[in-house]
């Protein structure tokens, strides 16, 4: 990518989970780090998320899930991406993700996991280093 282009990140809350404090803090942190950030708000279905990705064409998608629904929602979201041939977007998840679920999520193609206590700069660096274009 050219150095002038801003990295574009989509922060989104799939499912019914309303815990949005972390998502908002991360969204703002990424914006303050110079990225272009779109926050979808709450209650996004996998289809909603795919549609937003198609419209906005972000470099990275950060999912925030604290309800325990990650093992059900992440596969659906990744299926949607596949269906639309979206393969150049970095996908990571923040929230309460137990250690033992991470291998499964990695296999699906999720690349980062950020739980409580993560510093914003850790996520900023992760995005910078891992985007695919």
């Amino acid at each position, binding site marked *: 990518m050219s150095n002038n282009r801003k990295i574009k990140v989509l*922060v989104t809350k799939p*499912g*019914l*989970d*309303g815990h*949005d*404090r972390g*998502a*908002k*803090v991360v*969204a*703002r*942190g990424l914006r303050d780090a110079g990225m272009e*950030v779109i*926050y*979808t*708000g*709450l209650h996004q*279905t996998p289809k909603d998320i795919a549609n937003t990705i198609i419209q906005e064409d972000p470099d990275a998608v950060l999912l925030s899930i604290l*309800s*325990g*629904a*990650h*093992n*059900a*929602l992440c596969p*659906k979201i990744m299926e949607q991406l596949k269906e639309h041939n979206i393969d150049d977007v970095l996908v990571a998840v923040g929230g*309460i993700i*137990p*250690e033992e679920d991470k291998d499964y999520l990695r296999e699906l193609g999720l690349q980062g996991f950020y*739980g*409580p*206590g993560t*510093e*914003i*700069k850790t996520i900023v660096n992760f995005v910078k280093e891992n985007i695919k274009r």
Partner: protein
Amino acid sequence: MTESKSLKKEKSKEKETEKTKRTFRNLSDIEIKRLYKPKDIEDLDYEKDLGEPGKFPFTRGPYNTMYRERLWTMRQFAGFGTAAQTNERFKYLIDHGQTGLSVAFHLPTIYGWESSSERALGEVGKEGVAIDTLADMETLFEGIDLSKISTSMTINAPASILLAMYIVVAEKQGVSSEQLRGTIQNDILKEYIAQKSWIFPPEPSMRLIVDTIEYCTEHVPQWYTISISGYHIREAGSTAVQELAFTLADGFAYVEAGMERGLDVDNFAHRLSFFFNSHNNFFEEIAKFRAARRIWSKRMKNEYGAKKPESMRLRFHTQTAGVSLTAQEPENNIVRVAYQGLAAVLGGTQSLHTNSYDEALCLPTEKAVRIALRTQQIMAYESGVADTVDPLAGSYYVESLTDKMEEEANKYFDKIDELGGVIPAIKKNFFQKEIANASYKYQKELERKERIMVGVNKYKPKTKTQPDILKIDDEVAVEQIESLKQVKENRDNEAVESRLSELKKAAQGDDNLMPYILAAVREYASVGEIIGTLKEIFGTYREDSIF
């Protein structure tokens, strides 16, 4: 350099450090002085500002004997999986000395979706118990005598439906609605502000709330109709002052809505209760609780013309701050919870939930829940803190901080008034922005190490500890969907349809909806069906996604 010289240098360096040291600020950004003295409370008038406990303005407590007569209710929030699983947890808690129940519902119930809905994918039984119909409520309370226990239900948009189910379950046990004791959260304003489990727009939501108040005043007189909640406002990132101010502002809005319906304030205000957070800064929390009682009583008396002391007496439940728990070295959370619980008790709480140490990782395991409950029991029976009422009264620091909390809250009330009241302020994203700013600021302070979280930004552990965690089996969803299907096959579906269409018609007019909801619930209409019916008339709410 000679020894004395180096000593001198060290001393002057120390002085320098004291001078240039950061200012001490609590979580509301109020600056804390090195020392509080008599002059800090020279304007304090005992009768006017504090009063005896149980007397206006209730700063020292809502009751004159407080914990000497009755300890606070130890009420651990619980709910997961199927109704049968949660019923088992309830019985476990009762066996271990818990004195009240507190139900956590799963998200589909909270949002009014059936467990079989696409929207419920992955959420069934995860964050709470799956309740679709009356049949699930019957299982949830099986073998628990509803005339003996008080039950708190954390439910908001569909609160009237779950209350109706509770009333019918009791009826089937032979317990009349007049005997029922408990609470529904039923506080929709803080949903728009912070927790986000709204369904309908604010105006019809307020109507449903006033409907429950009106209904309970007549038929369920011992029920607390709203638990006006600061807990979620705080968890979403507000400061203590914001929690105090926004919560009380919501409370005033409910009182005004009840009075607009034509209800006498003295007939319903005493059934409103509060629910606060107890966070890390010990004295700040205590001051917040004391200030809350004083602000509420003054406003109820002076602004709303309440005559009965019960209408002016603020009572509250407390939960320790979930957001303060760390995933790093989770056992440390036991200590955090103990301090936070102690602040709640010194602040005069009526009931308490102490968080389990593993909650930054999963739903609490049985072991973690037991320790959390034992924490309260040790405080109640061993520490002596419950022996005297409001032991911190008269402390220069605590009284001065209590005044300061009140003063800062009053500034917020003025701002909210300027915006036209709570609902207009919600629509202008006022609260949402205030909270987002405060939570971002807090995060930045943590990252600059101006605030310390042990194990997170100081004394970081070298190795990861991972305690045993509770996982909800995906079988729960399969089981729940199947049992919902069976209920629907066995009920009188024609009756369900008639009750739902009567409810729909009533929603178009301005009848109290509680009797219609009760009628639908009796026929085993699901929460999802009832909410779906009301959505056709009331519509749904969408928020602006600000950050």
